[in-house]
């Protein structure tokens, strides 16, 4: 109870026509907190199970035979898994990088349009996000096979087994659904910037495109990062669209040999393996590593940021 200084009576909610729920408040708060944590736990439930599987000494998915870390180093031993991981990262990183860089410029271009036009293009921009994966994947495959045939018709000299399908189609397909996420996340930040910002920069003698890199991009950094994160997330977990559009990397090497690499990404590979055989728990181990690594990086980032912020306040004082 607060220290009293005067002897005025205490005002109550009742006399102002409201019911007093303050007694329920702590209970309410506890319930809400519990529910919130249960929900977050729910989102991570499958991740936790995957982590447990990765520590299982047996390959059985339903019986925990004992704690073991053997599957972690084993990731490196499994060539197919490593190939799939490499393909996944190559595709996702390239797609994310291109989508982030070009997508930012595209967003700037769309932002420069008048409102009505921009809204029309944004509508189209949302189609790849909202379209069903299976429709996107299948229809892109149709178009790519058409391009494939076409290219083969035009360039008759191509090796018989030449195919557009492979990293090229996979990256193109991934770009198809990652661009919109970048554009979508950059656009609101562009709207938040001062419309005179660019004019000010150019007024100071900066060339138009330099003004973008020096002035605009730093101002919309947060949007670009969010777009990049989402693009990467969508890309790394994509299954259906990749399923229809994957193939092999097939390069003629200088010594006359061919370099072939299966470019099925992890999802497609898992789907293929799962239908036929047991997955080795190394896949779980990899999944767990990825989650833990990201979480740790995130916490580290936040902690370093907190420190910096504190330092800044002190300087201000």
């Amino acid at each position, binding site marked *: 109870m607060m220290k009293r200084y005067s002897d005025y009576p205490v005002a109550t909610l009742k006399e102002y026509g409201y019911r007093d729920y303050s007694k329920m408040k702590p209970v309410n708060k506890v319930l809400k907190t519990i529910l919130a944590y249960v929900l977050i736990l729910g989102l991570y439930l499958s991740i936790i199970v995957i982590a447990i599987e990765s520590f299982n000494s*047996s*390959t*059985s*998915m*339903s*019986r925990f*035979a004992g704690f073991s870390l053997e599957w972690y180093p084993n990731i490196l031993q499994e060539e*197919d898994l*490593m*190939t799939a991981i*490499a393909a996944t*990262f*190559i595709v996702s*990183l*390239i797609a*994310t*990088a291109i989508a*982030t*860089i070009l997508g930012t410029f595209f967003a700037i271009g769309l932002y420069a349009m008048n409102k009505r036009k921009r809204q029309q293009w944004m509508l189209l921009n949302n189609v790849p996000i909202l379209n069903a994966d299976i429709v996107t994947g299948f229809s892109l495959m149709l178009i790519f*096979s058409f391009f494939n045939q076409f290219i083969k018709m035009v360039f008759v000299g191509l090796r*018989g*087994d030449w*195919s557009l*399908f*492979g990293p090229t189609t996979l990256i193109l397909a991934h770009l198809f659904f990652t661009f919109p996420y970048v554009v979508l996340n950059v656009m609101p930040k562009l709207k938040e910037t001062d419309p005179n910002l660019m004019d000010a920069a150019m007024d100071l003698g900066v060339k138009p495109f330099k003004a973008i890199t020096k002035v605009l991009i730093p101002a919309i950094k947060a949007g670009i990062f969010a777009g990049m994160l989402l693009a990467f997330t969508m890309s790394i977990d994509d299954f259906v669209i990749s399923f229809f559009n994957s*193939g*092999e990397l*097939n390069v003629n090497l200088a*010594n006359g*040999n*061919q*370099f*072939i*690499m*299966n470019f*099925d990404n992890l999802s497609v*590979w898992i*789907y*293929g*393996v*799962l*239908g*036929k*055989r*047991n997955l080795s728990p190394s896949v779980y181990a990899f999944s767990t590593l990825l989650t833990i690594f990201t979480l740790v990086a995130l916490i580290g980032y936040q902690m370093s940021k907190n420190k910096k912020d504190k330092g800044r306040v002190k300087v201000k004082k």
Partner: protein
Amino acid sequence: MKKLILAIAIMLIATAVVSCSSGPTLRLLNWGEYLNEDVIDAFEEEYGITIKQTVASSNELFYSKIVSNTTAYDLVIPSDYMVEKMVEEDLLLELDYSLIPNKDLVTYMAGVDDIYASMTATTLARTGETVDYSVYAVPYFWGTYGIIYNNRVDGLEEALNEYGWSVYFDAETYFPDASRGMYDVPQDAYATALIYLGENPNDYSQDLLDSAQTILQNAHFSQWADDALKRDVEAGNLDMAFAYTGDYLDRLYIQLDDGRTLEEVQADFNIYVPDPTIVFIDNMVIPYTATNLDAAHKFINFLLDPEIMALNAQSVGYAVPTEEAYDVIISYLDSEDSYLSSWAYANQTYYNKDREGTYYPMTSLPSTFVDDITTMVDAVKVSS
């Protein structure tokens, strides 16, 4: 951003270094974990040919990979009906047996010959043409389908041995509380239903389709899946499921690896192979896309060697197609290595070369039939 590009570059270089290969390559389109690493090493060492394997999970994927010609595969290992389809569509090259001398040293098991004969017969019935499939294909592994069951359910084993297919399909009469799983391949479901009816599983008519639908509905399947079936029976979450015998052996070997005995595993879950049953045979064939014919023939020849075939079988768990390879496996019965002796024992139990039975390989049905069967199976699922 610079860091990102750097990271990509490093990844690219790293993967290039990891998977860079020199010398001729054999591009093999195969099922997952269907080729013993030791065999690959032996082959690569002997011939200096690098094997690049691509894994696909269904015959249909094999087919589409060949048809779409996205990669030029030198050797594919499709199953029986897909071989029929591929031959029919002229996707396969004839084998040059002069490059496969080992073929003369081995004898195919009786069952394998039956299967090839049956394939020829179905093709004849359908197209009026007589095709000798051994011209295009050399058997890789073969296997039966069976009913994998949860042996912790009292009386199930005895009932299966006594009444066979009925226990699995007639859910109202036998073990109404038991959970049943079916392979999630429409044609497999259709074929098993026909076998239960005493029909040839490769026949097709509207009446048969309707009867099959009734049978499948009455089985009240609680699960339609692929790989999950065997794992669920193993864990005791499912009581009966249609499965490859090889799938059972696969789980069996894993449990043996974990230190359990054959009897213990069989007491948990076992497989019953009905008669008649469906069989499959996976075959080495050379698709028209092949660029390295020499390597493909060498590989086929290499695998026909009984020792190599037995070695390959060690990690796979399906039946070897030649009597010579079978004998090599059986010779391990008295091995001191308990794993090898169990393996030999399992082969003797589940793949005995003297086993008599009627085996039906499944043929490739015309796409309109497949469409109808798929729709029928979807209707069964929807109505459950």
